[in-house]
């Protein structure tokens, strides 16, 4: 469903991705690991279509759509969902109003039945419950004054409602305590399905104890330098990224 071929990308003119290949089939969970600065977050942002993240070569195809040709909202409508590493705060726009606009746009584009406001509210409350987020958060401004963990759970809550074809999670584990990590992992695992692909971008192996991947890839200097099964993550945890990149990792 996601086919990335020889992808080159630049951020503000600086080359970051330098020939990345990745294939995600329906039902698979992939983990992309790698040291700081290897291009993990760039990959997530390029796929989602953030400004100043420019594809300079190669292709990323989602279910036959060339992502480079789609606006960010069209990518979402095509079934792509990015759980942000740093979700932005939007005071004045309530979470509920935001979800309504998002779900209306996406469900309409996907030819799904529209949810009336009663259904939407019920579904949103269920999704909140699933990630341990008080339903009061629906009334607040989007991420406004949320703690780091609440923001991440808000991302997963949205993901549960959007039912994406391909979910990209950008360092969703960062800044989470162990309880929140398990909550988030449960949310993600509940979305695992034969029709859906999930890509976890993460720095640490910790998340993968709870969301067990089918494939693990190591990204270094804009390329995938090694791929393997879930045991690759454990090996990396023991040996450090220096084992593959040939450099001492300072962090």
């Amino acid at each position: 469903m996601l086919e990335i071929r020889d992808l080159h990308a630049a951020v503000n003119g600086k080359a970051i991705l330098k020939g990345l290949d990745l294939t995600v089939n329906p039902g698979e969970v992939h983990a992309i690991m790698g040291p700081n600065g290897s291009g993990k977050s760039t990959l997530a942002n390029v796929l989602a279509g953030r400004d100043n993240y420019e594809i300079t070569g190669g292709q990323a195809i989602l279910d036959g759509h060339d992502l480079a040709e789609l606006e960010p909202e069209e990518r979402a409508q095509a079934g792509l969902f990015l759980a942000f590493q740093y979700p932005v705060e939007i005071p004045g726009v309530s979470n509920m109003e935001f979800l309504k606009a998002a779900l209306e746009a996406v469900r309409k584009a996907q030819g799904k039945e529209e949810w009336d406001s009663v259904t939407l509210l019920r579904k949103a409350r269920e999704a909140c419950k699933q990630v341990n987020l008080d339903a009061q958060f629906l009334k607040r401004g989007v991420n406004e004054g949320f703690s780091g963990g609440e923001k991440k759970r808000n991302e997963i809550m949205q993901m549960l409602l959007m039912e994406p074809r391909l979910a990209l999670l950008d360092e969703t584990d960062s800044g989470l305590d162990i309880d929140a990590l398990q909550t988030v992992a449960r949310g993600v695992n509940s979305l695992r399905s034969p029709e859906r692909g999930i890509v976890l971008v993460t720095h640490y192996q910790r998340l993968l104890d709870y969301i067990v991947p089918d494939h693990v890839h190591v990204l270094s200097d804009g390329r995938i330098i090694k791929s393997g099964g879930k045991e690759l993550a454990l090996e990396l945890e023991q040996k450090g990224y220096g084992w593959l990149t040939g450099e001492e990792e300072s962090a």
Partner: protein
Amino acid sequence: MSLPSKQQGLELKTLAVENARRSEAGDALTPLRGDSLNALEAAVFPDRKTEQWKYTSLHPLTDGHLRTAADGALPEPLPNLAAHRLVMSNGRLQENLSQLPEGVTLHRRAGQRDELLTPFALYNGAALTDAITLEVAANTEVSAPLHLLLHAASDTPAHCQTRVEVLLNPGSKLTLIEHYIGQGPVLNNAVTVIEARDNASLTHYRLQSEREDTLHISTLLFRQTGVSRIDSYQLMGGNRLRRNDVRALLEKSGAELNMQGVFVARGQSHIDNQLCVEHRVPHCTSNQVFKGLAGEKGKAILNGRIHIHEGAMGTLAELSNKNLLLSPGAEIYTKPELEIYNDDVKCAHGATVGQLDAAQQFYLQSRGIALAEAKRMLSLGFVNELILALPDESVARWVQPWLAGELSQYPGANEEAA
């Protein structure tokens, strides 16, 4: 604009004086007309060199013939925001469409002259065709809001004078919705004077939702001659020219004034707000929060003057004006202006002009929301705290869809012309 500005001022004055002479009639307004005309003849109309008018050209006012507007066609149905409504059309009270709530009396006169010395306020007084004074009886709480619908319409270029005075007697309480509507090339030159005496309390809305082909110049004067409280909510849409001179005089210790406002200048709109709050006596409080948006070729101005007189110790005065530019061609000018003549005051002010946040736009887009809709949501979010603070449900219900319309993508706008 193109005409030499000094000539414009002279031309406008000549026309205003002629027009005022034509409106002479023997009625209760005659003394006010006469006094105002005398003062108008000595007055100097502003030009672009006048500091308070540097962003606003008078050119649109002299564009076409200056005639007092005849009766204008009222829209059907009339907006209905409250149980009781008074309608003025082209400056004339429409008795058949008006009902007064209990506790309020109406007189067909106007008496305020002091403090109304600007050329446009004088022109209003000199060329009046009608005027109303509303008086709220002492110790009376008017339970339902009063909707004052001030309409101006003409198919040909015209001017009309709208005059409303409101007196809140001691211990009275009123919610007043001062609502301007209209269409066509008509200038509504309006004067509103509101006096609050001891223990009076006013919730005041000022809704300016005329169509975009209209012109509006108004003078709003609050006089807090008693220990009183005024909460004023001012919402302004765009038109060819909108100029609001708002002056508040805090004249008795303990008076409190809160003003909040939102202005939206889209398309070719021009909105100029000149605010002046005068603390004339000790221990009064004023708090002002205004938010502005300008898009396409829209232009918005806010000058917020706070004048704290000598001896007005213990004054608390705040002014905040945050603005959002929605397009590269839009303009916003904001300036707090403080004049403080004693040491014992607490005075805070802040003004900012920013743009929509790219990260917020991307976040909304990444959830499937189209860019134009994302911009509308963020614009609405920018002013939402003020809208949520509107105390009357019936007003909020009217304001929300109206504002959403004002903030929607402007038809024909070239959004991407960066």
